[in-house]
Every structure is written in C-alpha cells, then in structure tokens.
C-alpha cells in the first residue's frame, strides 16, 4: 500500500518484527447534539403564498427549506421522542438531534422510518418532524394552515398507503394549498443537468438504478437493491460483535455509521486486495485502530523517592526486628546461663550430701538419676556456647569428623543395663549415618552416570550424526504431538457434548462406583494392573479440569521441548531459530492476531487495548456488499449486474442506449466511498460492449442535490401544473398524484 511499507524485510529469524507504535488512533464520537436551533423567520417573511416549502424527506435526514434557498435551512435526523415526565407532570417532545440532549429522550427516541426500509412507519413521529420543520422555518400559519405549497420527496414506487397517509396529513392537518411529490435521485439528476443517463442512487436504506431517457425516467426498468448505509452499518456492527465477542464497550448505531463513513472504502480489485489485506507488509497502514472510551485501572506508579523511602522503612523495620531478636537471644542466653549455674550448683550439692538426700534433690528437680542431670548440663553448655558464638558472630563450623560408635563392638555381656541402652542408641545413629553416606554415594554415581551418558551421546553424535538428529527430531515431534493432543482435549472438554467429555463422565462414574466394571471382571480375574503403565495415571488428568489441572505437566513438556530444541539448534545445521516451535507459533505469524489486533502486540491486561477495535478487512468488506450482495446473505444481484442488465438487455432496443451509457450518474450518501466511481467504471467497462463510450460521474453534492433539485423544480412555472391542489385532493382521493418527469407514476 504505502511505499514505506515495501522497505521492511522480515528478519532472518522468520518472526516478523513488531511494528512501531501506531501513528494514528481514531476515536468515536457521541451522537451529536447540535444545540438549540432558533426559529428562522426571515425565510417566511420573504416568501409569498406561492413559495413552496421543500422537504427532502430522507431516511437519514430530513432537509427542509424554502424554494428560493440555495441549500436547506434545516437538516435533522428523522427522530422523535415524546414522553411524559411524571415528576414534573409534563409531556416533552423532542425532534431530530435534540433527542441526544437528554438520556431519557434518547431512550425514548423513535425513528420515522421502518428500520432498513424507505417507507414511513411511524406517522406520529412523522407529524412531529413536520411540526418541527414548519416551526423552525418560522411558518406562522393563521387559521390552522401553513398556507404554502409543499414539495416532498418520496421513494421510488412509493406505496399507495404511505402516500395517502402523507397527503392526508399535509392537506388535513397542515392545510397545505397544494402538494407535489417527486423522487429524490431524479431531482438530483435534474439539478446536475442530466438528460439521458442511468441514475445510480445509493442512499441510506436502499440503492436504486433508474434509467432516464429524454429527461423521463423509465420507472418500469427501475431496480432496487435493498442495501444502503444503514445496512452497511448494521453489517459492520454484526461483524464487530463477532470479531470481539467480549468487547467491553458499547458501539451505538450512529457510531457504527460513523465507522463506515470514516474508514471504509471501495476496493478497486477486491479479490486481489483482499487476499493480501492481512499480509505483514504494510499492515500498519491498512489496520485502523478505533479507541473507545475506557477508564484505566489505577496502578499507582510510585516515584523514586517513595520507593527509596519504602526501602528505607523496610530496612529500618528489619533492623528493629534484628535488634529485638538479638535482645531476646541475649535474654535467653542469660536465662540459660543462670540455669546452667543452678544445675552446676546442684551437682556440687549432690556430691556434698548423702545419697538419699541427693536422690531427693534430683527427684524434686525432675531428674531420674545423675546421668540425666549431667546430660542436661552438657546440653545447656552446648547451647550457651552456640548462642555466645552466634552473638559474637563467628560461628565456626564444628569439624565434621565421622562419628565413632565404640560401644557397638563391645559384646552385650560386658555391658551393664545403661551400656546396653547406649549401645542401642549408637546403633540407631550408625544406621542413620550409613544411610546418609549411601545417599551421598548414590548421588555421586548418578552424576557420573549422567556425565557418562552425555559422553556417550556426544560420541554417538560424532559417529552417527544422522541417526542422532533423527532421534532428536522424533522426540521433538512426539512432544509437540503431546502438547497438541492436550490442547485438543482441553478444547473438546469445553464442549459438553463432545466425545472427550462423555468419556470423562464415564471415567468419573467408574471411579465413583464401588463395584468393579464388568469389563475388567471378564478380562481375567481381578488382577489390577493399574499403574503398571505410567499413562494409566492420565485418567486423573481427564477427570480434573479447569484451573491448574495440568500446569505442571505442561511446564514439563515445554522444558523438555526447549532442551531438545536447544540441542538441535546447537548441532543440526538444518534446524534454525525459525524452526523452533516458539518461533512458529509466534504471534507475529498469526493471521488471527493480525486480524484481531493488527501488527502490534496485544496486552490483555491493558484496559486501553481491550477497548480498541481494529478495522482492517472490514474496511473493504462492508462497502463491497453493494457490488456483491451475497457476501452479507442478501439474495439480490449487485449494482454492476443490474446496471449491465439494464444497459445491455432492457434498453437493447432503445435508440438512446448509447446516450444513457455516456452518463452513469451517482448520487446518494452511500456512493461517497472513496473509489466508488472508478470501481463502477472499471466493472461496467468489463461487461459492456467493447468500444462503447462510457462515463461515470458523481453528483456535485451527493447528499444535498436532491433538495436543491426539488427547490429548483418548484420554482419553475411549468411545474405548477404538477401540484395536486386541495380541491383535487378532496375530489380524487388521498392517493391521487399528478405524474411529472421527476416523480412516480400513478398506480392504484
């Protein structure tokens, strides 16, 4: 797309390098409240009873003004909100963009038109909008009449009922002296000086193709495609809801229309452009980010000072704790020293008294005999020594010399009861010690074995490199397969009806039931071989689902895979960075990521990014529907096909056919897409006879020229005959119209 994009070449690793941060981020607007519109008396004062009020009664906007105006004085969406405020005990009516001024009004707003069609559906709303038009145009009707003729646009082949009801309102409610109806796109064509041509009018709710010959429309050849800006916006909304199912923001209908208007364009070569739309090169230009309003989760960013203060505080409290601990240790030491002193005194005492007295003293101190007392003193001495060392800070490692067990070699006969006891104790300690030594030796052996294995492995690699690589590759494949299987299982367990889930249910039922399954019994007695194969334990994996059920295992597989890939990377020349699984599943290579998030990484934590929409393929996919309605499931032919059929078949006999081809005229807001003209020209060129002259042009103002055309038409004296007067209305019925070159044909 952009020339700058061609310069970026993917780095050799095969991963695409992330693009620099997006340059432009689009936003959405709230529906505009245009503010209070003052009543415009000037036009009414200038007008005479012959000056017509021109109303382009469009489904996207109603435009009204006087026939002498250069552009409509009033432009308002056909919205109407009427509700009763119970608190104030008062009824409110708001029209057009005024409904956006207030939340309740917005909620109560109703459209004049049936959604997605060009037929008026809500006549109360229609009356409200007309009230508003006449009010703002300053119509000061005396005795309950507007006293000005009305020219109003209506859809092609308007339904009799809709016209009848409109006439009733205009004549009976507003007392219009005369009324004329016309087709908006024909007014626009007439205003742009067309005589023979094909009017392609793509507007808000529908697209019409009307051949015009000698300034007269061939209404019987007219074709309507039920697609317009409204349907485009609806379609885009549908696509976006599917694309971002958990989008936290709300996209309103007017916003969707804005998105279509701002970001979509007609592709010149849809097939070709589409198939390269999500290519990495230049994606940053094609991908438009639309930011919706969000509130950032407040993560208090601490300043340097605060961090330093916090660290200082932590240190301080640590110091305090240390000091406290030291103090406590000191107290403990003191207590122990006192205790030690006391027991030493006690020994002295015992030695100095009689045996009986000594026994009594021992008893009172909870000792059985002297040896226990001695043991106690030894322990205390040791503890005191240790504590002192610690306090001083130089805790010297006591030399670890292998302990001796002298008593073990002495036969039992030579020992007294005490000795035997001690011997038993020493035996226990010795076995402990031996076990420890054995474990140590085992560890050494294992280390040696691994070293040996590695050596063998290296030897093997040097001898039989092919085989070695093959082995590694197979192992890598196996792990990848395992990971994939696991992912699939996980995905299938999400579906309640899947086979995997049914198997799981069965397993749970089997595990829960007390009696063994029939199958096992038939299989051969009750020799339970569960666990003989490691894979048996997989049963519990299928049973346990949800969070953290298999995180560990996954980690394991991933580290194994990493190891193998590291080895391959180191030694296999054919295996490079690009072939690692990580590189292959890197987000920059993912089409889905490009579709959802453009060429930028996505941070799911970020509220900002969660509230972003990326428009890429949609930008050409949505306007394409006019050319290929089947994309959106609309079972109608596209405009090129219709135009071709009108030009080559239906007008085949017409003497003006060549002239019609020379003027393909575009009007209506939905043709404003960039590239619409060129695309239509190219496609028509391809289907029309070679050498025939073809011209496609656009209305000077696709949106307002219909109104201007109607105003100019109303000013012409010869148009006066086409107005239906009040008397004719009363005589000939409400659906009576007079035919003229820019209006519908009369049918009953």
């Amino acid at each position, binding site marked *: 797309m952009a020339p700058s994009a061609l310069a970026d070449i993917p780095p050799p690793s095969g991963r695409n390098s992330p693009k620099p941060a997006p340059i432009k981020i689009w936003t959405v607007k709230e529906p505009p409240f245009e503010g209070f519109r003052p009543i415009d008396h000037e036009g009414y004062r200038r007008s005479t009873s012959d000056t017509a009020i021109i109303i382009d009664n469009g489904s996207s906007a109603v435009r009204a003004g006087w026939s002498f105006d250069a552009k409509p004085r009033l432009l308002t969406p056909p919205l109407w909100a009427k509700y009763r405020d119970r608190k104030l005990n008062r009824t409110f009516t708001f029209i057009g963009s005024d409904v956006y001024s207030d939340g309740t009004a917005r909620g109560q707003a109703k459209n004049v038109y049936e959604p997605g069609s060009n037929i008026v559906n809500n006549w109360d709303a229609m009356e409200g909008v007309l009230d508003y038009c006449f009010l703002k145009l300053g119509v*000061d009707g005396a005795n*309950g009449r507007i006293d000005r003729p009305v020219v109003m646009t209506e859809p092609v082949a308007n339904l009799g009922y809709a016209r009848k009801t409109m006439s009733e309102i205009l004549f009976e409610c507003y007392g219009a002296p005369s009324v004329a109806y016309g087709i908006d796109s024909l007014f626009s064509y007439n205003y742009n000086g067309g005589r023979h041509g094909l009017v392609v009018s793509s507007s808000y709710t529908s697209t019409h193709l009307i051949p015009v010959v000698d300034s007269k429309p061939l209404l019987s050849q007219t074709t309507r495609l*039920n697609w317009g800006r409204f349907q485009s916006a609806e379609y885009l909304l549908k696509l976006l809801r*599917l694309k971002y199912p958990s989008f936290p923001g709300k996209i309103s209908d007017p916003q969707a229309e804005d998105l279509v208007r701002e970001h979509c364009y007609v592709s010149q070569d849809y097939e070709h452009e589409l198939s390269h739309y999500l290519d990495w090169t230049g994606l940053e230009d094609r991908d438009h980010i639309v930011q919706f309003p969000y509130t950032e989760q407040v993560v208090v960013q601490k300043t340097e000072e605060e961090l330093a203060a916090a660290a200082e505080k932590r240190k301080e409290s640590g110091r305090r704790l240390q000091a406290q601990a030291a103090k406590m240790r000191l107290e403990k030491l003191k207590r122990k020293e006192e205790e030690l002193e006391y027991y030493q005194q006690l020994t002295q005492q015992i030695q100095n008294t009689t045996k009986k007295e000594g026994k009594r003293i021992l008893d009172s101190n909870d000792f059985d005999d002297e040896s226990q007392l001695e043991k106690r003193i030894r322990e205390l001495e040791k503890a005191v020594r240790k504590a002192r060392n610690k306090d001083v800070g130089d805790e010297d490692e006591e030399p670890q010399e292998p302990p001796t067990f002298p008593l073990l070699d002495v036969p039992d006969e030579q020992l007294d009861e005490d000795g035997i006891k001690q011997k038993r104790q020493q035996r226990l300690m010795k076995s402990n010690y031996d076990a420890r030594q054995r474990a140590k030796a085992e560890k050494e052996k294992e280390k040696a074995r691994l070293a040996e294995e590695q050596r063998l492995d290296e030897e093997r690699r040097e001898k039989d490199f092919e085989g070695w690589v093959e082995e590694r590759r197979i192992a890598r494949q196996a792990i990848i397969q395992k990971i994939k299987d696991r992912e699939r299982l996980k995905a299938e367990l*999400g579906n309640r009806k899947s086979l995997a889930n049914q198997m799981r249910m069965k397993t749970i039922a089997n595990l829960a039931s007390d009696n063994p399954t029939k199958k096992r019994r038939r299989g051969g007695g009750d020799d339970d071989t569960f666990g003989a194969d490691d894979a048996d334990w997989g049963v519990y994996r299928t049973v346990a689902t949800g969070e953290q059920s298999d995180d560990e295992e996954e980690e394991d597989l991933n580290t194994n895979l990493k190891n193998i890939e590291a080895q391959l990377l180191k030694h296999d020349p054919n295996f490079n960075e690009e072939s690692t699984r990580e590189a292959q599943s890197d987000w920059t290579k993912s089409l889905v990521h490009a579709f959802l998030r453009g060429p930028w990484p996505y941070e799911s934590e970020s509220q900002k990014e969660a509230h972003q929409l990326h428009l890429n393929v949609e930008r050409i996919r949505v306007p394409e529907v006019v050319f290929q309605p089947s994309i959106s499931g609309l079972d109608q032919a596209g405009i090129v096909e219709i135009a071709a059929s009108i030009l080559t078949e239906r007008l085949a006999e017409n003497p003006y056919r060549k002239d019609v081809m020379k003027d393909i005229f575009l009007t209506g807001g939905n043709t404003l897409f960039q590239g619409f003209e060129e695309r239509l020209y190219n496609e028509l060129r391809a289907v029309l006879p070679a050498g025939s002259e073809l011209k496609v042009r656009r209305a000077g103002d696709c949106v307002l020229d219909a109104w201007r055309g109607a105003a100019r038409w109303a000013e012409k004296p010869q148009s006066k005959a086409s107005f239906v007067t009040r008397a004719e209305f009363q005589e000939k019925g409400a659906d009576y119209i007079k035919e003229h070159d820019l209006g*519908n044909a009369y049918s009953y």
Partner: protein
Amino acid sequence: MAPLTTASDESNHQALLNKLDIYAIRKPFRNPHWKPPQRRNKNVKQIIADAARKESSVMASQTNSGVATPNQQGSEAVTPANGSGRPLNIAQAEQRLSTLVLGKNSRAAMAATTTGPAATYTNIESAPSFHPSSQRRYCDITGLPAPYTDPKTRLRYHDKEIFGLLRTMPQGTTEGYLAARGAHTVLK
C-alpha cells in the same frame, strides 16, 4: 430528573430541555380539529398485504358488474397527470369478446413501449444474481478468500489456523457467523 449528557450540566439541563421541547410550543399552522386515523402505523409487509387484498377485491367486483367502462385505447401513452387516471386493465377488457383483439393489441403495445407494466414497490426489487461472481466464497471469520468449508459447522474458512479457531468456537458463535452471511438455520 433525566440523565445528563456532556452537553449540559445539572444547573442548566432543565432549562435546556424546556427550550428544546416543542410539545408546549403553540403550532398555529396545525388544524386544531385534526384527528389522526386510528392504527395508521403499518409496516411494509402489512401495507403490501392490504394493497394486494384490495386489488383482488376490486378486480372481482369490476369483472362481475359489467358496467365498468374500459379505458380508451392508447391512454397509456398520455400521462395521466392531465386527466384520465388508470392504465389499461387488460384482464377486464378481455372479458368482452369485442375488446379481445384490443386487449391483445394493447398488450403488444405495452411490451413495445418503454413504459411496460407499472412499477410497484415489490416488483422493482432486484432479482437474485446468476452471475458467477455470486458464487465466490469468503472466509466467514476474516472475510479473506475461503477455499475450504468445514462440514461440521458449515463455516467457510481461509486456512488451517482459522480452522483451529472455528473448531474451538461454541455453538452460538458459529451460528452468529452463519447469520452474518444469511446461512443460519431459522427455526420457525
């Protein structure tokens, strides 16, 4: 109190509403005796159905009465704006043997003239496409060209990565994608 919008604040909101409200404003141009007919809001479907019913009943009564006069020949060339109302009613004209020839002639004339049968809201709708381009297939998820169709979900998809994605989608989502293409199952 109605909720506010960004355009106003608490203090001036009610004043703004009072200013915008057109219910309370006098509308002198309206006929004070105007009473809208009951149930006048109809949707397109209803209107078309009503019109069809009316048309068929008119046709029947005209055929039976025998007093209705057929329009004079050639009236379809003149614009009815200048007077006489309706295009030729062929069915009715053919009822009389004497006008049988006339009916045939006028039908031929109609085919020859550029006007043809009158355009109605329903008959100007574009017909389904027979062009091969309407057979083109696009990925339901991304919109890219789709050479494959998943037989299980009936979704069209672009490549195997998308296939992996659509196989993990819940039922409702795949239906949503089908609905965007108008290919979903509608239960009636």
